[in-house]
């Protein structure tokens, strides 16, 4: 623990090897891992239940929610390095209960199963989940059906809210600049298994162009 804290104090300077181990080897929320998700659930419960002890100046209750809106962008500069392998200059996770950027590697169904492990009833002011999808995966009537199924299943499992970004070319361009934040952005094609970030820039251009034309 002392060694870990020292690394965080130094913003992982000189500790890139360990930072990568923490980032890539330590399991992350958003991947349908019961053990990790259990920690998220316990943490959320701990924070949300704390508000029950307090009253506002008018004697009313606080209604806590798990949604950062855009505060996560603002707080980036004030939150130092974190033990998940994030340096102080890296973004904090968006939304309230979305996995941190790039940490979800098993697709939207796994994200939903992770998010559903939190107890949403304790967040009376709501929970917010952002999910990114490639246009090909929800294209057409059949794709729409799949999107509906994602939403239905999430609500059946206890989720309260979900919003989708269906990737446009601007986001794909950002993914070219910051691949580490988009490692779960998979272009799904029939029968094809893709390793994350193996697509070279020329092919990325190709995908971006195809997205503009076909969707």
């Amino acid at each position: 623990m002392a060694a870990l804290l020292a690394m965080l104090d130094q913003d992982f300077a000189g500790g890139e090897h360990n930072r990568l181990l923490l980032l890539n080897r330590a399991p992350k929320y958003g991947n349908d891992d019961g053990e990790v998700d259990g920690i998220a659930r316990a943490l959320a419960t701990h924070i949300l239940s704390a508000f029950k002890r307090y009253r506002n100046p008018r004697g009313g209750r606080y209604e806590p929610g798990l949604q950062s809106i855009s505060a996560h962008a603002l707080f980036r500069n004030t939150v130092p390095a974190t033990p998940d392998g994030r340096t102080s200059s890296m973004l904090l996770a968006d939304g309230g209960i979305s996995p941190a950027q790039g940490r979800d590697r098993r697709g939207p169904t796994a994200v939903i199963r992770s998010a559903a492990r939190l107890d949403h009833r304790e967040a009376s002011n709501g929970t917010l989940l952002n999910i990114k999808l490639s246009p090909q995966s929800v294209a057409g009537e059949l794709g729409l059906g799949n999107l509906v199924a994602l939403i239905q299943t999430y609500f059946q499992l206890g989720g309260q809210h979900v919003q989708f970004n269906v990737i446009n070319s601007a986001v794909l361009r950002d993914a070219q600049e910051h691949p580490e934040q988009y490692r779960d952005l998979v272009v799904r094609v029939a029968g094809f298994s893709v390793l994350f970030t193996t697509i070279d820039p020329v092919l990325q251009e190709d995908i971006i162009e195809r997205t503009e034309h076909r969707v």
Partner: protein
Amino acid sequence: MSENIAEATGLIFDIQRFSVHDGPGIRTLVFFKGCPLACLWCSNPESQRFQPELLFDATKCVACGGCAEACPHAAASRAGGRSAYDRNRCVACGTCADACPAEARTLAGRQVTADDVVTEILKDAPFYANSGGGVTLGGGEPLAQTEFARAILARCRTEEIHTAIETCGHVAWSAFEAVTTETDLFLFDLKHLDAVKHRAQTGGSEALVLENLERLAGLGAAVVVRVPVVPGFNDNPEDVRAISARVARCGIRELHLLPYHRLGAGKYGLLGREYGFAGGENVSDTRLEVLRMAATENGVTVRLGG
């Protein structure tokens, strides 16, 4: 046979959830490792060989030397601040992949039990129910590990999960026989009717594929034929028309045209291989439309993409 189900094991290289182009609805796609064919345009080169293989991505390497320390066969080394990899010494044990902090090394291919696979498949059961989805076995060639495939399918049936198989069709008929009762849908690849062209670019016999296709259709199995549309190989109206005519003759009513893509080309380098396909351009939308029209002439419903 049922007492073997729990013990059946096989080699896979991925289990991909939220697969939406490999059968109806939201599906989990199990990628079997090993294929009897070796199509030049293959976008899953890590699927072809029947043993584990190591993929090394030098662009992700941070030259920490972790692999060099870990490797029991002196196949990984660090010299001059760079990581080096001697494939001749490598036995694909995966020790280096476990040691690598930067995900520069991945082992493709792990031996698992049918139960392991089904446990993973069951996680998305509510999504299958809401979308009319299920499980698809693909790869590689699922029918090259028939007992393992059958064990997975049988358990999925017990759990009332819709089952599908993607197959190249280039296997013994007995492999089909072993799985037909447990398979709801076959996604059956058909690449070319010409023996010489087929052999040259896939390494296999079109006759075997066609024979299996006819027999399968003759059993009344639900079959959708999938044609990878490959530039310079079959991307012309004559070939596509002939294929769809043959499909119609078997009594099959649905055909998918899968346009060639190069998204998998990068993986060859990671395996220390060359991407052998020279034909290289994507199939244009206009051409694809011409081919779609040619295919529909035989009363077959044609879908573009998976």
